[in-house]
């Protein structure tokens, strides 16, 4: 018990306090000026916009994948099921590297997509692609247990009462799945906001265009502008804490549904 607390303070609390203390040394006006430069605003817009799109894509495709994995049996189902965790296991740098080479003009997918005007590497679309990749497991993994426990008798009842399959899905199944999908969505969104490793490779990191907020922090550090970096970091931290709170509420909601 004592050991737990000492270790926890040494590794988590003290560094955390250090950052907060540093931020407190700033006056409010200075903080505001550093945290809301034009370049920073453009970076937040990209970070949050791309994370939102990626999390939405994950909510949609994650639900589809979870549904197919739980409900149907088809060749390769077990392999796909195991592979869903691949983005968790793969170092993000490798993910960014391979995705950017897939979508580059001479890559496996890029050679077909780039002539169509779909440029996946070194664009904002690339940021969305990388974020979709890293967030992929969240929705699938939160939804799978809920789908497994879904009572089939309710669906039968709906079918007996004359509801079509689509109507059953929209009216009966979807509302039960909603809390889990939202939790997965929020988890993917939270992960996407802090993501750095995979984006560095695929975005090209052009200021005002394809530069994300964590990358801007690294840039500030390379200019030895610690205060600027700390101000940006505080903004990101506050956002992740708000999201963490939202996720906890959503999880409480999901477990109430599960019961």
């Amino acid at each position, binding site marked *: *018990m004592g050991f*737990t607390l000492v270790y*926890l303070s040494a*590794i*988590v609390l003290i*560094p*955390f306090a*250090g*950052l907060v203390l*540093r931020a407190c040394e700033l006056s409010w006006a200075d903080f505001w000026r550093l945290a809301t430069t034009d370049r920073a605003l453009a970076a937040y817009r990209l970070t949050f916009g791309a994370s939102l799109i990626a999390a939405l894509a994950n909510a949609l495709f994650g639900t*589809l*994948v979870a*549904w*197919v*994995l739980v409900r*149907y049996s*088809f060749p*390769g189902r*077990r392999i*796909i099921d195991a*592979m869903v*965790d*691949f983005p*968790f*296991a*793969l*170092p*993000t*740098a*490798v*993910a960014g*590297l*391979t995705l950017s*080479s*897939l979508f580059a003009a001479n890559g*496996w997918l890029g050679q077909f997509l780039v002539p169509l005007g779909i440029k996946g590497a070194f664009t904002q679309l690339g940021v969305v692609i990388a974020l979709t990749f890293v967030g992929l497991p969240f929705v699938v993994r939160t939804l799978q247990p809920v789908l497994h426990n879904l009572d*089939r008798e309710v669906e*039968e009842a709906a079918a007996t009462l004359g509801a079509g*399959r689509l109507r059953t899905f929209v009216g009966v199944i979807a509302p039960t799945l909603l809390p889990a999908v939202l939790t997965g969505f929020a988890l993917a969104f*939270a992960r996407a906001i*802090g*993501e*750095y*490793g995979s984006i*560095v*490779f695929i975005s090209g990191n052009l200021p005002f265009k394809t530069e994300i907020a*964590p*990358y801007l*922090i*690294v840039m500030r*550090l390379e200019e030895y502008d*610690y205060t600027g*970096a*700390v101000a940006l*970091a505080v903004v990101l*931290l506050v956002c*992740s*804490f708000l*999201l*963490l709170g939202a996720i906890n509420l959503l999880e409480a909601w999901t477990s109430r549904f599960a019961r």
Partner: protein
Amino acid sequence: MAGTLRKNWRGHREASQRGTEEPPLIKWLLIGAALSFCVVFLLLPLANVFAQALAKGWAFYWKSLAHPDSRAAIRLTLTVAAISVPLNVVFGLAAAWAIAKFQFRGKSLLITLIDLPFSVSPVVAGLMFLVLFGLQGYLGEWLQDHNLRVIFALPGIVLATVFITFPFVARELIPVMEATGTEQEQAALTLGASGWQTFWHVTLPSVKWGLLYGIILCNARAMGEFGAVSVVSGHITGQTDTMPLRVEKLYNEYNAAGAFAVASLLALLALFTLAIKTFLEWRQSREFARARTAGRV
């Protein structure tokens, strides 16, 4: 065997519950859409790593890996993992033990704190250590006076890695320990076993699969961490470059095949992690099934 059982069970269901199945056309369309999404986002990126790594042939592949700087990066990554994973295993055991077996105030706060590194951006995590130990940091001058290097050296990389991989073991163990309850330990203590004996012979065996699972995940993340390590490492070639940082450096030097060669080792690590994880899950479900049938008989 489990597979055939499952299939029969499914077949039975399909025959008896037509009303809750989608028409075959829609079903196969859904499967097709899900599969193509998985192929584009999971299988192609993986296959691409190995294809690109071998694009210039095996000879070049081996040469890239045998390069002294790459070898140094591999060594550093292994060293960092060898230090940070055991630290977090010990902590994870202690924390999970405290949380699962005792009641105390502030427990939920403790759980939130353990989860904290999950929700902090890796770059911000690295920055925290820079603020503490960097030259402009709070302890920077003191460290310099005593000729100690934390930032841009091994200790900083280990600290950042420990921070990032901190929750993995504890997170896996807490539910397992909560599920096993405290009766067995109490029995052991009543029979005269000491606290340590109880821990080694009762608690540890009951959580061994969960523990192994946590270690595997923790190790994968420790070896693959990029953002936090990148901030504190200083990118000194041959000295403070870990494998992911080496990948970035080679890529920036327009040596794509070399970057992919090092990346392929990390991808192999990821595959290995997935294989162990799948095995452990299969094993757990088998033990669970056995326990259930035993209970029924």
